[in-house]
């Protein structure tokens, strides 16, 4: 094995060393630059959303873009059918509360079903942090109303059934008031102090 041959071999490995070290240094710089750039992600995310008319503080679930209108319309989509159905069920109950126990109980049972499904929808709804306390109050009011209506539906006589009317009306009114308050709160653009 000649000396030249060995020297050439060494030179070849040295060249490889230079290449890999140079690329490695470049890669290290890029990784560090990437990490620094990544540190500003949150701020850039808010700017991008704001530029597109989205509300960064209305996107608690990681939705790419949520506007006040989008959130309100989504809320109306779940609350409007509930209000409509509850009105129908209450009308059916009122029509039967003096004469037909079976029909009145069926109307109340339907009311319980719709109240429970509304509670499930509310629990899944991406409420922004600013309205979270109101959302909690609405869910609690709905739960209380559903519980009372279920109890009323178990009545064995028309007199017993009607004895719940006062409390049931108050519970239902509380739910409707909270629903209105929630809609108003969602329609109001959050202030900077309400940032998450």
């Amino acid at each position, binding site marked *: *094995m000649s000396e030249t*041959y*060995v020297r*050439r*071999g060494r030179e*070849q*490995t*040295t*060249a*490889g*060393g230079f*290449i*890999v*070290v140079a*690329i*490695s*240094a470049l*890669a*290290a710089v*890029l*990784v560090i630059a*990437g990490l620094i*750039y*990544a540190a*500003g*992600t*949150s*701020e*850039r*995310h*808010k*700017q*991008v*959303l704001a*530029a*597109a008319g989205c509300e960064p503080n209305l996107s608690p679930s990681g939705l*790419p*873009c949520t506007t006040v209108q989008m959130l309100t319309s989504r809320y109306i989509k779940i609350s409007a059918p509930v209000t409509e159905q509850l009105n129908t069920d209450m009308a059916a109950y009122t029509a039967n509360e003096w004469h037909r126990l079976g029909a009145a109980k069926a109307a109340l049972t339907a009311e319980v079903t719709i109240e429970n499904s509304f509670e499930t929808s509310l629990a899944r709804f991406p409420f922004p942090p600013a309205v979270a306390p109101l959302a909690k109050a609405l869910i609690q009011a709905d739960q209380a109303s559903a519980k009372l209506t279920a109890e009323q539906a178990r009545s064995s006589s028309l007199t017993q059934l009607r004895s719940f009317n006062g409390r049931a009306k108050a519970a239902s009114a509380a739910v409707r008031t909270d629903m209105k308050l929630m809609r108003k709160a969602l329609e109001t653009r959050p202030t900077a102090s309400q940032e998450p």
Partner: protein
Amino acid sequence: MATTRDYEPDLYPGDASNTWNVEEELTAGRELQRRAAKSGVDEWMEVEFKFGGSRVKRKAVALILLGAPAALPLFFMLPALLTMNENTFSGSVDDTLGTGAEMCLFLCLLITPLVMITGQRWFVPLRRWYGIMMACCAIGDALAAGLTDTFAGGFLGRVAGHSFELVGFIMVMLVIPLLLTGNHWAQRKLGRYWKPLQRLTYVIWGLLAVHLMLLEGFKFQHGGNGSGFAGDGDPVFHQRFYQYSVCSLFLLTLRLPPVKRWIAARQSEGRNWLVYLTIMPIFALFVFGFTFIVSEEIFKGVDSFTEHPSNE
């Protein structure tokens, strides 16, 4: 693509063991050392354990776990395929299957450098699997684009009517012979022509750069214009050509003959730690870029799976 069940180093393009022939004595010493180094993990992987009523090799479990994610892009498109949802196909098939094909290509190309660095060979069968998945994703992408895209010009116009599509179409045409010959039978029949044919993988790798350059350009998004749109405020990380470049840097560097010689020399000296230390930043950059490719795949894939294709 170029993988067989029983791995033979000289059958694969760019394999580490092809390139070191400076000194025979050194080569023999290095080979011995490499075999000794690989035997630890490779032998551990060969050990069988009891699972249910049968005996399963650890390697089999590891290969299944590492190979399964490559099938995800096709899995994501399954609901749209079963329901023939044209909206999902036209909206996100190119992202789901195109990104999936890119992901599988990088995984396929990652095997050789990993064999060279670690000296382990138990994961070599994954190269074939990733290659097959890459081909399936690429062909699926082209078919779906041809059938559901909104571009004019019929099927051919939709798959090759624009410059970036034409490059993509050529890539798909090249992937077909690779898919057809990626098996033992074809390897035996083609003999010495098999290896050069499998090197088409490198042509596809290069064409992917052209495809992404034409698709995304070199710039990233500013305001409402440019590539790499992302609601998360990270347009640089979502720029596909950047992702490709940082991933390719690692894969290409470790294929350069002088670098391979340098690595082999350090390994023969018993200084593999120096190799690990030196390539760590390049590998970190690869992981950085690859993470965003995977993130893109999952984001778009889940949208496709739920049949609510993303507009991003």
